[in-house]
């Protein structure tokens, strides 16, 4: 039957007598209910709107920017969830579990389709973050994060638009921030709710209206901190798409620093506080700019006056130039003459002193050489005389020793020594030695000398020869 439904929807041209049927509608409706109930059970997340109750069940729509589904939950299932009526107000983000259902109606009752929820809970931070991340990925992929950032942001806008809650601290913080910068332009307030299901469309409308005004040069969207559920309006896909397409730069300051909503991604600038948003919307610190401008004006005045004054002084200096140059040359020349004179005098004195030094040195060297030569000669003479002396001594000694030897030798040959041994010497009367028997015989008388004296003796006979 499912195929039949599908075909009749997809192929209207084929409608006609050739199709199956006709079927009885009541039976067809029951079959449709069975098919619906066969579908997989799932969880859905979205905003609750139009919550109402009958005796047995509660019914509402679950919706997001892309579509909605009518839902129903039996009251006893609802009670199990333990949610107060106020927590299921319009705009509350919830997660429901269940599946599609179809009520075929009856003779009197109307048929209806609904998603039969068997459980319901408020969406937690984790659910919202997961949904936010999916949206963020999608918008980034479409390049919507870059459009605002390419817009020119004037440093000194004359008028800015602000979208915020009429009663809120963010409004006062923003004004204080603007005044602190000395900015007194026009602020056009586009007040809008910032925290319920009407918030996102209202903020979107205010932004578009402000951007349509030609004098508005930047728009600030701001609100104070809160849970992600509180700030959920600023993650609305339609609102963020609207912001991305605006021709005026949008400065977002939603929540505190840790809160990062989707509008922060698409805006030209995302700020953590309304005060920072004031600085981003009016980048120029007007107080500092006025002071800077005064300094510029002063610098220009000085430059203008200085340009003429300096040049006139320069011209005057040029006019006095030739005489001054002559005087300068003359002074230079005189100085040179003095230097030359001093240099020559100094040269002569130095040369004389040098000659003196040379003379002294040479004479001293000659004297020293003479003294050294004399000392050497004296020393040589002394050595020589000592050598002679030593030689004479040696010679004398040698002679003494020779004499002593000679005396000994002489004494050995002395006849007196022989006489002492008992021999006698025959001598003539004249004292001449008689050395032969012949001579003794001839002499007839001889003197016999002994060691202790002599005696006279006569020789007789002839010589008797020894045999």
């Amino acid at each position, binding site marked *: 039957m499912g195929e039949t439904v599908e075909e009749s929807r997809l192929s209207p041209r084929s409608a006609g007598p050739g199709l199956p049927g006709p079927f009885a509608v009541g039976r067809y409706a029951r079959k449709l209910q069975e098919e619906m109930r066969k579908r997989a059970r799932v969880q859905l997340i979205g905003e609750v709107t139009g919550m109402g109750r009958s005796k047995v069940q509660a019914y509402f729509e679950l919706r997001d920017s892309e579509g909605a589904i009518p839902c129903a939950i039996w009251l006893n299932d609802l009670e199990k969830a333990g949610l107060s009526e106020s927590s299921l107000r319009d705009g509350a983000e919830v997660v429901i579990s269940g599946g599609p259902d179809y009520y075929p109606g009856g003779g009197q009752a109307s048929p209806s389709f609904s998603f039969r929820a068997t459980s319901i809970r408020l969406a937690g931070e984790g659910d919202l973050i997961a949904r936010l991340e999916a949206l963020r990925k999608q918008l980034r992929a479409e390049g919507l994060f870059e459009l605002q950032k390419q817009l020119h942001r*004037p*440093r*000194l806008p*004359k008028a800015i*638009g602000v979208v915020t809650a009429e009663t809120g601290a963010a409004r006062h913080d923003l*004004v204080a921030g*603007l*005044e602190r910068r*000395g*900015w*007194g*332009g*026009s*602020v*056009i*307030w*586009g*007040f809008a709710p910032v925290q319920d299901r009407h918030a996102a469309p209202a903020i979107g409308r*205010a932004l578009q*209206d*402000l951007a349509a*005004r030609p004098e508005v040069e930047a728009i600030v969207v701001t609100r104070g901190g809160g849970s992600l559920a509180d700030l959920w309006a600023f993650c609305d896909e339609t609102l963020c798409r609207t912001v991305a397409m605006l021709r005026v730069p949008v400065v977002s300051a939603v929540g505190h620093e840790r809160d990062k909503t989707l509008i922060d991604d698409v805006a030209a600038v995302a700020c953590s506080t309304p005060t920072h948003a004031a600085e981003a919307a009016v980048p*120029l610190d*007007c107080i500092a*700019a*006025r002071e800077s*401008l005064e300094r*510029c*004006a002063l*610098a*220009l*005045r000085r*430059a*203008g006056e200085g*340009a*003429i004054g300096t*040049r006139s002084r320069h011209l005057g200096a040029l006019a006095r130039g030739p005489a001054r140059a002559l005087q300068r040359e003359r002074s230079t020349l005189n100085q040179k003459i003095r230097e030359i004179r001093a240099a020559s005098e100094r040269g002569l004195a130095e040369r004389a002193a040098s000659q003196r030094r040379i003379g002294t040195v040479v004479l001293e060297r000659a004297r020293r050489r003479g003294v050294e030569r004399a000392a050497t000669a004296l020393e040589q003479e002394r050595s020589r005389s000592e050598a002679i002396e030593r030689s004479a001594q040696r010679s004398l000694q040698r002679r003494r020793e020779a004499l002593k030897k000679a005396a000994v030798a002489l004494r050995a040959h002395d006849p007196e020594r022989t006489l002492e041994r008992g021999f006698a010497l025959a001598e003539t009367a004249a004292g001449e030695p008689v050395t032969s028997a012949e001579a003794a015989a001839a002499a007839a008388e001889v003197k016999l000398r002994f060691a202790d004296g002599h005696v006279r003796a006569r020789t007789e006979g002839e010589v008797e020869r020894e045999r």
Partner: protein
Amino acid sequence: MSDSPESYEAAVERLEEIIDRLDSGQAGLRETLDLCREGRELVQYCAAELDEVGEGLKELRLDDLAARLDASGAGAETP
């Protein structure tokens, strides 16, 4: 003023260029006098821009402006 600057930013940028050129001491007399004249005009322009946002914050409501626009539109259509 010969040519009005495009914006406050453009005026300030040109003014800074002029001051830098004058501070460099490289501009001749004619150029210096021209730069001083241009600079004075830019200072006047910037001062006027600052004066426009110097008289205290003016707060307007988008609803009022829209209502005024509607009223004037309706008035124009009424013969």
